């Protein structure tokens, strides 16, 4: 049973982690509570579907174009909507929620509510610790790990990363130090949208595609982000891992209650927050951010 929990827990945690990190990044830097984050994930998944299944393009080409289009869409949303009201966090939250709902309705109108699927680009399975694991799952885990590593390298080893961290810690001082805060926020929005899109590239072939598919992951990443501590990238990853494993333990150990996987994860979040209201890696001092 332990092997199954380990393997399946890693798969579930991986996707949540990439999504949660993207959400946390834009909140940490621009204070944008982007409720449309998982809608970006959904949009990428549907663009890949249209590219591969309706236009007949290869997966790689569809994925690259879809990621580019999603980043573009994220940047437009930021420039036209979020940036103008970002000082009012509640307004940003409501506007981003409206964007997500609008995306859902547009998909319903154009592609209807049919359940669809994208063909996995690797088929078959392998035995790991006696547990059959789909190659696609393995690819998802590796893809998530590579993305998280790439983000870590970007934030810690590059000047852009330093600028992003500086803005996250104190945007006014960063501005005084000559950092173009607006541009950094815009770039961070692009990276955040890109992370949602990459999560779709690696995980969408495992999911049924439908216009409501953004809601469940949104709940889970909100839980992961709050559990880990709002705005903390490290916290988001740990939050995602805890929730991913909590879900898997419920499914494996209590089969009759596997529908409770989400509820148990959220209950775990509530318990942690009661003990530590700022979350596991919550920001008590601004300089700890990111």
């Amino acid at each position, binding site marked *: 049973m332990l092997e199954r929990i380990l393997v399946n827990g890693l798969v579930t945690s991986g996707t949540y982690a990439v999504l949660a990190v993207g959400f946390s990044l834009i909140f940490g830097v621009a204070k944008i509570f982007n409720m449309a984050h998982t809608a970006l994930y959904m949009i990428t998944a549907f663009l890949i579907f249209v590219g591969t299944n309706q236009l007949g393009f290869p997966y790689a080409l569809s994925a690259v174009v879809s990621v580019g289009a999603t980043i573009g869409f994220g940047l437009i949303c930021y420039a036209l909507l979020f940036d103008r009201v970002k000082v009012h966090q509640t307004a940003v939250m409501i506007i981003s929620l409206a964007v997500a709902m609008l995306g859902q309705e547009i998909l319903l109108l154009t592609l209807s509510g049919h359940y669809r699927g994208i063909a996995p680009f690797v088929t078959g399975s392998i035995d790991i610790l006696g547990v059959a694991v789909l190659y696609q799952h393995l690819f998802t885990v590796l893809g998530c790990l590579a993305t998280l590593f790439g983000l870590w390298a970007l934030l810690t080893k590059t000047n852009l990363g330093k600028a992003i961290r500086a803005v996250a810690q104190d945007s006014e001082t960063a501005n005084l130090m000559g950092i173009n805060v607006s541009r950094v926020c815009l770039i961070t929005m692009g990276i955040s949208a890109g992370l949602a899109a990459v999560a779709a590239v690696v995980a969408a072939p495992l999911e049924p595609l439908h216009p409501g598919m953004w809601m469940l992951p949104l709940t889970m990443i909100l839980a992961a982000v709050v559990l880990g501590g709002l705005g903390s990238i490290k916290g988001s990853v740990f939050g995602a891992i805890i929730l991913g494993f909590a879900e898997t333990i419920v*499914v494996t150990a209590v089969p009759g209650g596997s529908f409770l996987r989400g509820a148990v994860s959220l209950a775990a979040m509530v318990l942690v927050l009661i003990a530590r209201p700022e979350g596991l890696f919550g920001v008590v001092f601004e300089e700890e951010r990111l």
Partner: protein
Amino acid sequence: MRIFGRWVIASFLILFVSMGTYAYADQTIKIGLIGPMKFVPGEHILWGGTLAVEEINKAGGVTIKGKKYTLEVAKADSNEILSLPDAVSAMERLITSDKVDFLIGGFNSEPVLAMQEVMAEYKKIWLCPGSSHVKPCERLAENYEKYKYFFRCGPPNTVYAGRIVAHQLMMVIEKVREELGVKKPKVALFNEKGLWAEANIENAVKEVPKEEFEVVGQWAISRTASDVTAEMSAIKAAGAHIILDCVSGPAGIPMARTWGELKIPAALIGVDIPGMTLAHWQATNGMCNYEMTMQTIGRVEITEKTIPFYDKMVDKTKQNPTYIAVDAYDAVYVIKDAIERAGSLDTDAVLAALEKTDYRGAMGRIKFFPKNHEWPHDLVWGPGYVTWVDTQWRDGNLATVWPDGKARLGMKDLEGLRYKGTVDYRLPPWMIEYWKNKK
């Protein structure tokens, strides 16, 4: 001037004749088709209902005491999958604004219960091609006068569906015994959390004698679960030979895809609503091969009307008809038949005629239970009436595999009932290989 006068007279004559024609064309009967139109069930209600209306109009319409009436469709999006209040408003709009004469539609049991109140308030006859829970018809038993306008022309209710699934289970138990030599196959129960799914599974398991099989566990997933790898791995570890499923939401796709891709050595059977459409093959990347699910019809000769209807739907929509399409199609004909027998559009007269319905439709012989039954106005199920079928995915097609001509579970009248075009059920080849190698 005289020429001008003739033109005026001729114009009046043309106008008069046109008015007469208009008055004749105004003899229409409006059918309201309601369902979640952006989703498969709504589309299929519309497709099935519209096809029947077109056929009836082409054949001369509905005849009432020698007068011809044309059928007209008014559609309404109930959006009931996303919002229950939307369903109630859409129903009210059809009645008050579109002024429909009869209603056909409704999919989920919960919105149907709410929509029944609107129907009762306006006293409109409603044939519902969805909602498999017994509650909507139980309401008639409790308060016939209020809810008598409701008829269920839909899938088997949860009690009958459980019985059909039980026959499906028994057929596969026999197959596992015969091909793998397992005396008491192990069964994993896999359902989404929901009233109808739990009732279906519970009823099916109750119908099959306990000594025939062993339950190794029940996995109840959320309707919107997108990943069931952990569940499938656990089912494999439990040594199940059969997975008895009951799902209606998107979870049906990852279920079949993970099962096929991980080559879980257990037959996947039961009720998978997404698995009833041809789109399922694409959505699962063909991994649903050998999955079995209950359906209303397959491309077999249930009656002489079944295959022509099936082929027309495929030609027109490039989709196979799901249960709700054939239910809506037959519902239109059932209303036409009742109106003609009643010889009137009066609600009480048509209602009385509907209660005496004995109509041979594309899904079988349609009759409704009488008002003193525990489920008044529900469809009579069983051999000789409507039986429904089980279909199995075979290389991109849905093959009908049940009724297979054998009587099981004490239902002797199933002996010899095998619709023309039915094929034998097959266990997945990887399952046979796995269990033979394990010996």
